[in-house]
Every structure is written in structure tokens, then in C-alpha cells.
């Protein structure tokens, strides 16, 4: 824990911890103590895909098709391109700094502690908003599942289900000692399998293999502007890849597995999203899809395979939204840990519970607001604010890459170097910030207020913390 004298002059807070460390493929070695890397490539992909797929396939198709028609597929494609433009620089930065904390870590080291504070707090709360959004989706699926077995509840009951599940999830993650990583891999494998069968059949059907070709409706019935606003809305479906970087400290052979997992998971989900919209709009039409709301895919499943199809999609939807919410709570608590390690939040925030071995305070700081936000039931607002807060970070990741490449500190030696510098990261930054402009006014206002509050917090609590260039 030795730290050079001229760095980390913290004010009221504790000094940021700067360690003498050695990285190997399998462990991080701090003086006498080793930290094992336990997540392989499959585990990394499962984190990325598992976090993302719940939103894009099981919550958004109805909303997106309602706004943009079949052209919603283009909206998803745009989101995928933006995500890829960020996944590349994020991969380079992650191989240069394979530490837990992800985007927060890169930006605080590349651009300094003010940006670090903004991004760290945005990441924490962005994941809180995202998780609340997944839980609202989960509640919808739980309500639909109950309706399917003949228990119909009043309209607001699905929100109550989402809230209840948010509480359960938070308590479980604070008290559970079982390692669920293996389970996550299985869930994601199962989801991809169901979806592949379903989408293959659906695509063949849409192309007219099993009967009359479906009547093509206007591709972009509302014109092309809604395609962009929809892209901004559904961008929440791409928030998972950066979560892989939040556990970068636990990834085996990080120089190989981090880029593969980040870029790979974006490519996988993009294909699935685009095909899903194509299949869903061909099967029932975008207007009908809109009418079905968040659980529209259940009706698409019913259209193809009857009740069995509906049940399969319900089950998959419950699993997918659950795994997204769970992954986001865990990542959010990692973001809090990274902030508190750097003295941008009190050290108390990352304290570990001796009995359960879990960071109970950080989990409560994530889970508490998640439950409150889930209770609002505002799907689109939650999604857009989550995207807003992430897009700010994504744009800054691209800028951090440019800054670090132009003026590299001596520790900057990434094993993976992204192609197309400086054009691609610049395009990545512009498109990340640009997408924000197409969001609803309320979402932009809420996101903006959170960022201002982050700056105020930094001025008040951690003005003296220096992080730029400190590895």
C-alpha cells in the first residue's frame, strides 16, 4: 500500500489506495497476497449477454415497433454499432488496466478525478436505473405468467411483483454465499438455445417457407426520425458489455478474454435483436405488437407455437429479466466499491459483512434505490435515464482512449490496440453523446441533474483526490 507522496492528497476522505501490484494471467499479486482470477471467456460472455439480452428481446420489441415500425430493427442495429464503437476502446483500456471498476477506472485514470466522480456516480445510478427497468419488465412477465395459469391480477399488480422481487434479489445477494456464476452460464446458454430455435423458425416463416409470405407493411410507417429516438430508447439493451470490464480484475488471461468477451457479446446480442424485431413485426405486425406492450414476445411465441410457445417465451423472459437485474445490482455494487477505494465515497460503503462475506452496504446502496425506482413503473423513463448515464460514460471512454494514446503515461501498455485510431474513437464519442440528443426531455433532465449532483459531491467531498495517471 505504499503510495508516492505527490499523489492522492485526499481532503476529508481517506486517501485513495494505490498498490504495488503484479498482474499474471491467473492472479493479481499484491505484495504477499494473491487475488485469484476465476472468470473465463465463457463466463465473461455470459455476463455481457446475460445482462443485455433481457431488455432487448423481452421488454423492448413492443415499445420499439410501436414507435418505429419494422424499422425498429434499424434502431437496434444503430445501437449495436454505437455499442461496438465503444466496446473497441473499452477493450483496449481494459487490457491496459485490467482492474475492477471498468469504465470508471479508465476515465478516472485517463481524465482525472472530476470526470471519474461523474462517471462513477453515473455508473452506480445508471445501473440502478437499468436494474429497476429490468425489474419492471420482470414484473410484467410474472403478471403475464400468472394470467397464463388463470390468475388474473389488477393492472398495478405487476409493478408490485417487480418491487417484491427487487427486495428479494437485494436480500439474497447480501446474504447468499453460493457462487451463482455457473448458474448464470447455464441460464444464458438456455436462453440462447430457446431464442435460436424460435428465431430460426420465425425467420423461415417470415420469408414464406411455411406458407404464405407475410404481408409486408410499410418499413418505417412513422418516418425515419422515430428510428433515431427509438435507437436512443432501446440503447438500454446494450448496457451489459461494459459490465464485463467492472469485473476485469477477476477475468482470466484478461488481455485475450476481455476484448473477446466485450466485442463478442455486443455482436451476439445485436444479431439476436435485429432478427427478433424482423421476426416479431413479420409475425403479428408492429401495431399489434405495440398493443401487447412489454410482453409482446409472448404473443409472438403464441402465434408460432401456440400455448407451448407462449409458455416458453414467458419462462425465458422471466429468466432473462431476472439475470439482467441480478447482474446490474452486482455491477452497481462493484462501481460503489471502486469509488470508495478511490476515496470518492466513504470507505464504509464497501465494507464487507463478516458473516456472509458480501459487501452489504454497497448492495443496499444499489438495491434500495432500485426498489424505489421500480415502484414508479416508468419503463421508458427508467430505460432512457439508464442509457443517458451510460452513454456519458461511453463517450468519455472514447475520449479517455484518445487522451491516453496522445500522451501515454509510462504504464500505458495495452495488449490489445483498437484499429482505426483516432477516427473510430472520435466517431464513438460523437455518436454516444449524439444519441442522448434523441431522448425524451424528462430523461435528459433527470440524467443531467444526476450529473450535476455528482460534480457537487466531488467539490464537497473529494476535491483533493488526484487520480489522473495513477495506476
Amino acid at each position, binding site marked *: 500500500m505504499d503510495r508516492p507522496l505527490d499523489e492522492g492528497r485526499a481532503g476529508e476522505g481517506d486517501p485513495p*489506495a494505490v498498490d504495488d501490484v503484479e498482474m499474471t494471467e*491467473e*492472479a*493479481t499479486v*499484491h505484495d*504477499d*497476497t*494473491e*487475488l*485469484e482470477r*476465476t472468470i473465463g471467456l465463457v463466463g465473461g460472455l455470459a455476463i455481457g449477454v446475460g445482462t443485455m439480452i433481457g431488455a432487448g428481446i423481452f421488454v423492448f420489441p413492443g415499445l420499439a415497433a410501436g414507435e418505429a415500425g419494422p424499422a425498429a430493427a434499424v434502431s437496434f442495429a444503430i445501437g449495436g454499432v454505437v455499442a461496438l464503437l465503444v466496446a473497441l476502446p473499452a477493450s483496449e483500456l481494459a487490457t491496459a488496466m485490467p*482492474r*475492477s471498476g471498468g469504465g470508471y477506472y479508465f476515465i478516472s485514470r485517463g481524465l482525472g478525478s472530476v470526470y471519474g466522480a461523474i462517471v462513477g456516480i453515473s455508473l452506480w445510478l445508471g445501473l440502478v436505473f437499468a436494474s429497476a427497468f429490468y425489474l419492471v419488465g420482470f414484473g410484467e412477465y410474472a403478471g403475464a405468467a400468472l394470467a397464463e395459469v388463470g390468475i388474473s391480477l389488477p393492472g398495478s399488480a405487476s409493478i408490485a411483483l417487480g418491487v417484491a422481487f427487487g427486495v428479494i434479489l437485494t436480500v439474497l*445477494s*447480501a446474504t*447468499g*454465499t*453460493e*457462487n*451463482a*456464476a455457473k448458474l448464470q452460464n447455464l441460464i444464458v446458454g438456455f436462453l440462447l438455445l430457446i431464442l435460436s430455435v424460435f428465431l430460426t423458425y420465425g425467420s423461415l416463416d417470415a420469408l414464406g417457407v411455411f406458407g404464405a409470405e407475410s404481408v409486408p407493411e410499410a418499413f418505417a410507417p412513422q418516418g425515419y426520425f422515430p428510428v433515431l429516438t427509438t435507437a436512443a430508447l432501446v440503447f438500454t439493451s446494450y448496457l451489459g458489455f461494459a459490465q464485463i470490464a467492472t*469485473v476485469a*480484475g*477477476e477475468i482470466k488471461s484478461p488481455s485475450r478474454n476481455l476484448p473477446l468477451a466485450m466485442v463478442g457479446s455486443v455482436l451476439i446480442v445485436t444479431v439476436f435483436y435485429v432478427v427478433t424485431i424482423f421476426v416479431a413485426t413479420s409475425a403479428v405486425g408492429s401495431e399489434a405488437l405495440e398493443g401487447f406492450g412489454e410482453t409482446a414476445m409472448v404473443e409472438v411465441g403464441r402465434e408460432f407455437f401456440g400455448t407451448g410457445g407462449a409458455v416458453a417465451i414467458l419462462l425465458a423472459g422471466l429468466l432473462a429479466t431476472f439475470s439482467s437485474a441480478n447482474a446490474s445490482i*452486482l455491477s452497481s*455494487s*462493484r462501481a460503489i*466499491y471502486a469509488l470508495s*477505494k478511490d476515496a470518492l465515497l466513504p470507505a464504509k460503503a*464497501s*465494507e*464487507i459483512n463478516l458473516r*456472509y*462475506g*458480501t*459487501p452489504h452496504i454497497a*448492495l443496499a446502496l444499489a438495491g434500495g434505490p432500485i426498489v424505489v425506482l421500480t415502484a414508479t413503473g416508468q419503463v421508458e423513463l427508467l430505460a432512457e435515464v439508464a442509457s443517458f448515464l451510460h452513454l456519458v460514460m461511453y463517450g468519455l471512454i472514447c475520449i479517455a482512449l484518445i487522451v491516453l494514446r496522445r500522451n501515454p503515461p509510462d504504464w500505458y501498455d495495452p495488449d490489445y490496440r483498437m484499429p482505426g485510431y483516432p477516427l473510430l474513437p472520435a466517431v464513438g464519442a460523437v455518436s454516444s453523446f449524439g444519441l442522448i440528443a434523441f431522448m425524451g426531455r424528462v430523461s435528459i433532465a433527470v440524467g443531467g441533474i444526476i450529473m450535476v449532483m455528482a460534480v457537487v459531491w466531488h467539490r464537497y467531498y473529494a476535491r483533493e483526490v488526484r487520480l489522473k495517471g495513477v495506476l
Partner: protein
Amino acid sequence: MKPTIIVPVRVLEGEGIEQGVVELLANARVVLVGYHVLPEQTAPGQAREQFEERAQNRLTDIAEQFEGVGATVEKRMVFTQDSDQSIDRVAEEVDADATMVLNPATEMKDVLVAVRGDVILDRIVDVVGGLLHRTDISVTLLHVATPDSDIDGTALLDETSAVLQEAGVSDDRVESRIETSGTPLDRIAEIANNYDAIVLGESNPSVTTFLFGETSQKVAERFMLPVVRIRQPRDIEDADAEIAEAAEEATDDGEDEIDGEESE
């Protein structure tokens, strides 16, 4: 040469080492691996910040126990979400001969050695000889044959006993015992109840699924006594190639040097 033995200890859960184990390893190079298993909710670095000092202090206390009886001790401390992976990694890094699975043992008088006819018999004998030659601990060599086995148990144990004697474990301390059972592992566990520790090999995966793939937790539950698990060289083909090479070199250097080598 002192055999290198990995001794994994869950330091933060108050796991300690009993005197019997300390006595058994007095002639070993002990690589003490303190570990703490974390749920996936917890970043290993987060746990390190909070628990490192306590863990290191505890590890130092345990190291002193071993140093007190003359063992060479190295310390490692790992925060991990997968203890078996960490223990395997360290074992690989220090090229360990065996991994200790801890269980209570207040004294160390009688050690059971499970012998099968496979590639790691050499290593088993090396470790047992290395650990016991300067002690008065007695050894029972046990071969449990399956009903359809074609291994000559008596010859195997005689040969093993002879090699042990060369290593400094005199004849009068060594007993042999041959049994037949359809479920050898259960039979071994049963017999082991009368001993203070057991030495057995990880299996050659191509021959049988003896203990291969069993986590140390499972091994600890199956045997109620300390277990010295002899490590299988990770790549059997490599090991075979090495043996073949060594034999070839030996032949080149002259007949004398391969005397005493196993004929297999």
C-alpha cells in the same frame, strides 16, 4: 530431497493445524496456502483490503508451528472465488508433490498408503520416504484390488516396500495388506478409520476415475483423517515422454544407471 507439500488453510474461518499433521510434515517443504473464499458478489480486492492483515497474522502463526518441528515453510495468501482453482494453481507454480487435505489428527503413529499399479507410484514412494525416513511412524501399504483386476498385488507391495527401505523406511516399520472389493474407494475409506493419516494418488484419468476431479472438500468428507493427495503430473503424456527420454539417456550412459528403475 524434501517433498513439497501444499497445505491449504481457510485462515479466516479459524481453521488450524493439529499436532499430528505438523509431525507428519516435519521433513517437508511446506507451502502454506492461506485462502479465503468469496461469493461472486464480492471483489477479491475488496476483501483483501479488509482482511489481509488478519489473514497474514494467522498464516504466520501457523507457519511457526511447522518451523518449530524443522519443516521448511513458504507462505501464500489467496483471496478467491474458487478455492480448488487457486490451490491447483499454486501447486503447479511450486511444482508440488502432494496436496494436504486437512482433517483432525492429534497424533501421528500409523500412516496408511493406498497403492495402485500406476504411473505415480514413484512419486508416492518418494513422498512417503521423504516424509517418514527420519521418524518412527509406521506405514501400512494397502492394495485394494477390484474383482476383475489383473494386477499382482503381492508383487506390487513387495516392490514398493523394497523401494521404501532404500529410501530409509526400514522393513520393520512397513506392513502390507491386500484386499478385494468392488468399490475400492469405500473399502479404503473404511480401513483408513484405524489410521492417523492416509496417502493416496490422484488418478490417471485414462485408467480410472479414482479421485480425479473430486474437490478437496469431497475428499475431506469421505476420509475423516488427514489426506496426503499425491499430485498427478498434469500432462501424463509429457510425463511418459520424460520417463522415456530419461530412460534413453540412461541407456546411452551405460546399463548401470537404469538398474533399480521400474521395469514397466
